[in-house]
């Protein structure tokens, strides 16, 4: 109703903040932090928070890629295993093949990008649904990992490969470069998604693929780009993981499929594509990390940790719905 002409009053806010859909999880996070702080004197400290960020760093980076993919209504079940392979390639080339660390890292990135690209080819050319395409890739890469590594963990990495695990201090709190890289990647992803044309195309492709196609958005090309960029992101996650653990591990990342999707959905992104926010994903990853850390710190036996985490995750999202119905 209102005025019959277009209002220009509300000029465009230049940068959009995370949508309301992450309000609930945010509140849940705050409540959890308060509870944990009262229950354990060691929870509320810069060192512990820095630790939590380190712990979630590689999963959170993976979840950036998963967010991009889910935004275009896809899904990636090969995310953890591809990361593991990337880390293996870096570690093996840098040690056994004696390649300079930079080249080894590059080769790792190329590897993960290659498998992201392959996923996209299976999806766009063979028209296999992403779930099946990436599930198949999970099986394939699992076998590659084991044969390539001989199921052996690779130790004694050159310092360049673990540089992201080094720390610097801010007010007495040691922070790893890996953590910083993760945060920077989130900022970049958020910026690209909300401020660039390809970012918006991604939303359109997930929201209404047919409309996007008719609007001249090259859906297939976009899909290829998204999965390949996601592959690059997995490579970065691999580097962070390798730096954090100091090894190349063929068995790494096995729980990261579910973990990364959890972070995405917890952050308010729709599994049906087109709606969501990558900063929400970061929040989702942090929530999981805080729950895990806090529950351990206050000494909950591990059996009950899964119980309480389950309840908290549901509560976080339910809270969101309650708060939204009120507004």
């Amino acid at each position: 109703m209102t005025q019959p002409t277009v209002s220009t009053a509300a000029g465009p806010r230049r940068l959009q903040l995370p949508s309301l859909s992450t309000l609930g999880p945010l509140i849940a996070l705050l409540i959890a932090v308060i509870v944990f702080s009262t229950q354990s004197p060691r929870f509320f400290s810069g060192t512990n928070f820095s630790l939590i960020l380190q712990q979630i760093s590689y999963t959170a980076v993976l979840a950036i890629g998963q967010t991009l993919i889910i935004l275009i209504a896809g899904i990636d079940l090969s995310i953890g295993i591809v990361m593991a392979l990337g880390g293996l390639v870096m570690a093996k080339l840098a040690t056994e093949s004696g390649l300079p660390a930079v080249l080894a890292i590059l080769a790792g990135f190329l590897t993960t990008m290659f498998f992201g690209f392959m996923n996209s080819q299976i999806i766009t050319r063979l028209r296999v649904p992403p779930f099946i395409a990436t599930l198949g890739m999970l099986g394939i890469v699992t076998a590659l990992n084991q044969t390539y590594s001989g199921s052996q963990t690779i130790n004694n990495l050159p310092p360049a490969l673990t540089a992201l695990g080094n720390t610097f201090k801010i007010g007495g709190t040691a922070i790893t470069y890996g953590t910083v890289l993760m945060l920077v990647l989130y900022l970049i992803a958020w910026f690209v998604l909300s401020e660039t044309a390809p970012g918006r195309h991604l939303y359109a492709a997930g929201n209404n693929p047919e409309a996007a196609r008719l609007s001249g958005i090259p859906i297939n090309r976009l899909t290829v780009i998204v999965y390949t960029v996601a592959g690059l992101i997995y490579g970065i996650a691999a580097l962070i993981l390798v730096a954090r653990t100091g090894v190349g591990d063929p068995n790494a990342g096995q729980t990261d499929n579910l973990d990364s999707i959890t972070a995405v959905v917890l952050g308010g992104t729709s599994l049906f594509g087109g709606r969501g926010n990558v900063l929400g994903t970061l929040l989702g990853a942090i929530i999981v990390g805080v729950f895990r850390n806090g529950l351990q710190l206050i000494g909950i036996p591990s059996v009950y940790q899964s119980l309480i985490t389950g309840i908290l995750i549901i509560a976080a999202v339910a809270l969101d719905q309650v708060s939204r119905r009120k507004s």
Partner: protein
Amino acid sequence: MTATLTPTAQRPAPAAPLVMEARNLVKKYGSVIAMNGADFELRPGEILAVIGDNGAGKSSLIKALSGATIPDSGEIFLDGQPVHFRSPIDARKNGIETVYQDLAVAPAMTIAENLFLGREILRPGPLGKLFRLLDKKKMHDEAVRHMQGLQFAIKSMKQPVETLSGGQRQGVAVARSAAFARHVVIMDEPTAALGVREGNMVLDLIRKVRDSGLPVILISHNMPHVFEVADRIHVHRMGKRAAILNPRVISMADTVSVMTGAINPADLSADMLAH
């Protein structure tokens, strides 16, 4: 040698080469034949109305012309050159803009975003060229400008399209095609959901586009609208062109009769037919 004069009324030479032409388009979906040898001709700077019963195959025809579907057989010419659109991107590259009947909009995205979907305004300089950074302010201002022309009661360009009324949503789709066409504008029932006032605005817009030199293909079931703006009327029936009528001569009632098959076009007087 003796020059024989052909009566112009009988076989007029086209005023100018055709902008778009289609010959014998066929499209089948299983046992349903959506196009059954459809022909089509669009002249420079004209408003060509395409009318026909529901399910006559009008949308199928223009989807073929705009690259949204690939016909099973037949040829399409743009400015006399054969073209093979594999996707809407191809058609759009050739300056063809289309309003689809089922409004190709992304419901969760804002009006401004939908208006510029697929051809966002980028920041000037390398920021735009290299990083494809959006010029959100300019997009917003342009969106306001385009939509203001159509006078919909829309509060903010940042409303998601899914919250708009049916007519408002259609307005977004129409504003979009008019704003970007460089060669041909195709509108599939652009006024179906519009009110009287808004419908007239869109008719004005169509005329403005024509006056700027671009031909317009207007699919419509609204006979008054058709007769108000059309230069020629293409009647589609059972998957093909049944006749081309001259709205300045033929009556609305006769037109409807041709459309529904009550009158055989062959029985019409020659001046009622357009060429």
